[in-house]
């Protein structure tokens, strides 16, 4: 999805798109996720459940 990005000029054109940025954010969140898993225990699987639920829900929205 390429949108016109609103930011202060001057603008530089790169191949970065929303999903590239979001993938970077996901990678950046991983250390905290691992520490949370190690320190707070197995109930962290809820997090995975949440992600799975979101993917499932958005697929339904997209198809209908």
């Amino acid at each position, binding site marked *: 999805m390429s949108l016109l990005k609103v930011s202060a000029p001057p603008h530089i054109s790169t191949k970065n798109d*929303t999903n590239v940025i979001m993938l970077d954010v996901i990678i950046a969140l991983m250390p905290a996720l691992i520490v949370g898993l190690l320190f707070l225990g197995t109930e962290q699987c809820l*997090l995975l459940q949440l992600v799975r639920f979101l993917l499932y829900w958005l697929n339904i929205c997209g198809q209908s």
Partner: protein
Amino acid sequence: MKLPTTIGDLSAVVSGILLGFNLPSTAPFWMCIAGSFFMMIIVKAFFGGLGQNFINPALAGRAFLMASWPTRMIAFAQPFSKVPLISKIDAVTSPTALSIIKNGLEGEVPTKMDLFLGNVSGCIGEVSALALLIGFVYLLIRKVISWRIPVVFIGVTGLLSYAFGGSEGLFTGDFLFSILSGSLFLGAIFMATDYTTSPVTSLGQYIYAIGCGAMVFIIRKWGGYPEGVSYAIMLMNVATPLIDKITPPKKFGRRKA
């Protein structure tokens, strides 16, 4: 509805992880479902999807859950208390460092090293400042976010707590403790920097970050909640259009009038 599927842009995954980070590890799964429904449908989709929401979806989801199930939202598990996934036994819970101080609860205040590494009770994502800092450095290297909002935000909260947060007059507060405790790092690095809900220009970002830091300090010091990062960011999210209005970007290619 003939709308394109936007699952591929991964923003929903990021929102989902951030909402998960904002929950205590004892939260039941239906709270995740309720929170993500509110977050994705009401806060994001109703306002036009990615880039159109006026407050951070993950924080709005957290605020929704906090208002709906306040006791479940503060049932923080103690670190290293083994909790099986499906169990009738309640997890061993303990108050966070901030609520011990704020409400005078029983419990040992964790050391700064424990707060830094994450050996404390709290939401899933907020416990370890070190892990969040690693993520911050990665985002800086990849130039996904600029240093301005996180650094100014954390700095202002720390300085205000140092200057006015102490019990023995001015400049007796604890700078490190105030920035390491609570979800300040999580909020400042991953939530306040959301492109959609933060100002465009660098001057606007300074104003926004100073506002966030001041609001966190005010809520922690005088508010009813021990932790105010989420509400501080949401309040400044709402102020973002106004900040953008008073700090317009420079116009290029125009002669000075």
